[in-house]
């Protein structure tokens, strides 16, 4: 066993938890021979905010992508809201429940901001057009750009595009939000805006898993930090513990790097 490997939480039972929002047991993911995720175990409760940290290539993106099954896991189990996620899972239902925001926004360039937000609700949830548009305008209001509804993505700044991406995900009314480095491509001012939106969402009680190096969010908003290295989870601790007294050398080294950076 890896010397640094954190022993499973004493509170964590061997069986997956039915009451947790997300329950992961012995979950592994391979890319061919390469072990991208190695026997992970943890629970995320309803309304919890989790920040995933770790060096590049440690498997952070892969981990959060297993929750909406954009990357299917190979062994072990994932339960979301008590339901098993495997090849028999209804992907449409799963993805209605788990929303995702990407580093590069990935807005649909051929659709206006409003249509970006209403496309999936209409196609996937069969929401009537009028209703979908009302909801989209409400979420655009919430992310602070109601006046951009009729523009095309190319006409917006990076920060505005990421807000649209968040609104687009919210329009599916998910119970879990996955963020993959949502601020990595933004300048400092835009970062502040996007982080404050994420704070608001967190306050509203939506379960959040976020890969980010943004201290403002991980220190003050997150309930727990998951620290990963080479496909394994080395630490799961509250941010105050993690940032002051990390348990592993690897995490200490990572934090030193982060601060210097």
């Amino acid at each position, binding site marked *: 066993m890896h010397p640094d490997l954190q022993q499973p939480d004493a509170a964590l039972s061997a069986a997956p938890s039915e009451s947790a929002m997300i329950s992961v047991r012995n979950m592994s993911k391979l890319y061919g021979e390469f072990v991208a995720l190695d026997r992970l175990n943890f629970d995320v409760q309803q309304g919890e905010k989790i920040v995933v940290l770790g060096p590049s290539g440690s498997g952070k993106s892969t981990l959060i992508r297993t929750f909406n099954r954009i990357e299917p896991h190979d062994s072990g189990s994932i339960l979301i809201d008590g339901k098993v996620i495997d090849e028999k899972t209804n992907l449409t239902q799963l993805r209605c429940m788990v929303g995702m925001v990407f580093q590069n926004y990935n807005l*649909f360039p*051929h659709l206006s901001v409003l249509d970006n937000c209403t496309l999936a609700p209409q196609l996937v949830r069969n929401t009537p057009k009028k209703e979908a548009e009302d909801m989209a305008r409400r979420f655009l209001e919430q992310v602070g750009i109601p006046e951009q509804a009729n523009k095309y993505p190319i006409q917006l700044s990076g920060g505005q595009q990421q807000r649209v991406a968040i609104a687009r995900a919210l329009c599916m009314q998910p119970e879990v939000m996955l963020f993959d480095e949502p601020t990595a491509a933004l300048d400092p001012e835009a970062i502040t805006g996007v982080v404050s939106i994420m704070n608001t969402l967190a306050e509203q009680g939506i379960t959040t898993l976020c890969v980010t190096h943004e201290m403002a969010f991980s220190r003050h908003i997150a309930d727990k930090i998951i620290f990963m290295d080479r496909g394994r989870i080395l630490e799961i601790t509250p941010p105050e513990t993690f940032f002051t007294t990390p348990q592993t050398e690897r995490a200490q080294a990572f934090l030193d790097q982060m601060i210097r950076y």
Partner: protein
Amino acid sequence: MFRKSLLAFAISLGVSTALPFAASAQDAAGDVPSFVQNGTLTVCTNPTLPPMTFVKGSDASKPEGMDIDVAQALAQRWHAKLSIIPMDFTGLFPSLGAQRCGMVLSGIIQLPAREKNFDAIAYQDTALTVVARANTAPITSMADLSGKTIAVQSGTSYATRINRENEALTAAGKLPIIIQQYPTEDQVVQQVLIGRVFAFVSQDVELYFRQKQLHGKVRIILKPDYPDYRHFAVYFRKNAQDRIMVQTAIAALEQDGTLQASRQKWSISAQSEQALTQDESASSFNWSAFFSALTSLAFFKGACITLAVALLSHAIAIVISIPMAITLNGRGNSVLKAVLKTYVSVFRGAPTLLQLLFIWNALPQFFPIFREQWFTPFLATLVALAINESAYQVEINRSALSAVDAGQELAADALGMNRKQVYRHVIFPQALRIALPPTINDFISLLKTTSLASVISLQELLAITQVQVARTFEFTEYYAAALVYYLAMVFFFLFLQKRVERRFSWADRKKASANAS
């Protein structure tokens, strides 16, 4: 006159010796030749050789001429329905071999070389003539053509005949006659009219008929005495009983005056020869001919066929090339991928004309159902061009699909869309913008490629033009009219491209802002 009676004599001689068999064969086989099938006599013809077979009016599918009269008389005699299939000259014998028609009647000389493969029965006397521009002095023998260029129709036997002359010329230490071959008789005549070649070789009956159009423009300079160039014959697949029946039928038509009446009708007589010895000066561009061509129903129909073939075949090509492109863009290797790659290289590699000829002439040899009437030139062209174009369209689709950012599919997946929705609403609209300009380019090129289908008798714009030119020899005027049609179509699609590109303003920040304001 003398020659005609000679033919009649030869026919009656043949019939009298064959008659006993003929009578018994008629009793046994219900008195129709075996190539009359389901009560239909199918005749292949290349309607560019007046007065034997040509298109007189505007309906290109209804040729007229002495050959058609003969075909009608034969069909009547055999109580059969007549079906005429107009096509390119080079396609006639392959089609007969492929059983697409029972008979070829197209002003074709009776030659021993052709009789090796098919049966032939003569029905009209003729003679070979050498024709030059007006004001050219007559020559005394073929040897006088040494070193000069002459034009002949390709697929005819004139080239072989002249090569035999050339052997004699070379043996005598003289320069050979230079031969140029053209696909239609009227193009052959044109070469003389514009002065590119010194003379052309043709049959006298044709010149007699064309004397009105050619009057003053050309003149006969020599009638070499070739004994083997004296009869036009009908050709059919070898069959001893059919041969007797056709022979009997032709002899009867000669006796009851049917053939003679047809000769009168099409002015196939020696008097016509006189007119071709007088000279006159050529005229300039005939504007009224040009405008009447431009506004004629025939040209309009031809353009519609051109447009329909191009649009339909490209539509089919696009539909079949999309799944092909998606498969080829997918990860990994499979047998299907290897098959598709071969498909693309084969159909991009082979000349389009060859593919057309293959589908029209070779396919029926493997699959007899392609001989049937439903497999029209239109359908054959559609199949050939759709397959050919799909091989090019695959490449356009592939690069367009891979130009769409992979994050788009990811985002659409994450929003819960299914495969169909992802392609329909996210990937295709973006790929379309990239694929559209090269696709319209390809379409314009395809629109022009349809003109190749005239070789398999599709009556598209260029085929119509050629038929009209053969009728009048006002080639500059008709070519100009065709050009106007092609350009009008191309410009329309270029205009359409500009209009459609405006809808893609989302890809350009400045244009998007301009549209919004």
